[in-house]
């Protein structure tokens, strides 16, 4: 549903898209070097993550969390009367994955973790892979996520795209970009 809202916002002209290349600073502490050009989408319903895409929001999405603080929600107000899902600086990797799981399933989509492992992302982070069946259109997506907690703040990259064709096409670029992430103290 959120994807639909953003797509409609773009059509209605109340959203903007900016081309991004090279090294970028996201938030106050995170830098990332892009592999090729990406599109940054600014629209109602986007946030607190930065939303980037290669193919367009209905197809693929890269969510970048650059310093979510303790107690802050990780999504905008969607999911009707359901409670917000918030980040806690005490969360362990399994809890952070469960937090994103809750976020992705608020609209009835189905999430399945397929891998969780340590990673050097942002120094001392972790990496996970998942399958997501999107309730809005029954589409089968594949996703990869990187996350780390630094000075009590959450930094994460989550990329998802249709399991067939698009995810395999762009996965290597996203993984390469994740390796370039650096955090300022």
């Amino acid at each position, binding site marked *: *549903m959120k994807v639909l809202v953003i797509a409609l916002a773009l059509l209605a002209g109340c959203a903007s898209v900016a081309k991004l290349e090279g090294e970028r600073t996201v938030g106050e502490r995170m830098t990332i070097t892009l592999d090729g050009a990406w599109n940054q989408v600014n629209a109602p319903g986007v946030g607190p993550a930065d939303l980037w895409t290669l193919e367009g929001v209905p197809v693929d999405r890269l969510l970048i969390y650059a310093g979510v603080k303790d107690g802050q929600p990780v999504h905008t107000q969607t*999911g*009707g*009367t*359901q*409670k917000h*899902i918030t980040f*806690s600086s*005490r*969360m*362990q*990797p*399994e*809890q952070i994955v*469960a*937090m994103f*799981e*809750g*976020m992705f*399933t*608020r*609209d*009835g989509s*189905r*999430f399945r*973790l*397929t*891998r*969780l*492992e*340590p990673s050097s992302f942002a120094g001392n982070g*972790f990496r996970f*892979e998942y399958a997501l*069946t999107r*309730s*809005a*259109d*029954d589409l*089968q997506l594949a996703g990869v996520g990187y996350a780390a907690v630094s000075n009590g703040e959450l930094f994460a990259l989550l990329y998802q795209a249709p399991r067939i064709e698009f995810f395999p096409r762009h996965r290597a670029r996203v993984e390469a970009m994740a390796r370039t992430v650096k955090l300022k103290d």
Partner: protein
Amino acid sequence: MKRRQFLSFCSGCLFAGLANAQEWSAPPRLARPDVASDEGGLWALMDREEARLRRSPFALRDPHLQRYVQDIACRLATEHCADLRVHLVRTPFFNATMAPNGMMQVWTGLLLRVDNEAQLAAVIGHEIGHYLQRHQLDRLRDVKKRSAFGQFLGMFGLVGMAGQVGLLAGMFAYGREHESEADRIGSLLMRRAGYDAAEAANIWENLQLELKARGDGEQNSPLFATHPPAEERQAALRRLAEAAPGGITNASAWQKRIAPYLREWLGDEVKRGQHEESIALLTRKIGSYPANAEYLHARAEAYRLRAKGEDLQTALADYQVAASLGGEPAETHRGMGLVFRAIGDSAAARTHFQRYLEKAPDAPDAPMIRSYL
């Protein structure tokens, strides 16, 4: 009108409705409307959605369970049975919907929550009540005036609309009068089919536990602004049941039917991240089935993920009882390991992580757990 006066007024309506319900008789089978009419257009739209639902990855394709639920619907609908098609949908919200073309959806969040066959019959009977009284058509004409067609489609639980208005939205889809009328008809259909109609009121009692556990109560829910509050519907259903007590519940048959799916549905429930609601639900289930390791494990997971106050200790206690009962999921030992790790008991954490990896060496998170050893 003040709240108390208003509730009193509504109670009067329901008592008046009781007499009507005794006299109520089902209409003849509904004929397919003219395709050029607004109702015909709605049927065509629902036909397309039903075709989509049949292919959907959210459809639960178990012919035995589907037949079981379809048979319950048929006992309630009697001569309308031939027009009803039950579809089971795997989504963790409490909902059943009935479209005007006879497509009925029953979501797994509902199947997880009901305690027996009679409670499921109450929800299905309520939806059949909407169908027989053609409430959907009234609603269509109403929303057309208000340009709220998207919201209207959500009433039928179209797959993409799941979860848009929360866990219990399905029970508040129509206006006050229609919901109350469907409650009365549902109760009557239950009694005619031999079910204990008191179970309809028990559903509301159970749901209120979850609503209250959220912490923001009814006041903050937009659903309650325009619909009979849960307590009011519970009281009305209780009065209807008292007029003709008795009947079957089929509790043990129900538990046997859902046992193969319990772990999967409980996993879906905990994944919602609505820990207060999940803990309330699971505490109620554990009260009824204290020796069921699945409910204990699921509640432990919800406490561990919430991790507030004494939650980790409570989670550990639940995990330990689940493990002592035997037949616990492998993830019970992962959970125990994570709790012990969080509270600084690395030796105990190691023991349980090793146990988890022995039971589930190919688990998706095995690389992460191995890094903790």
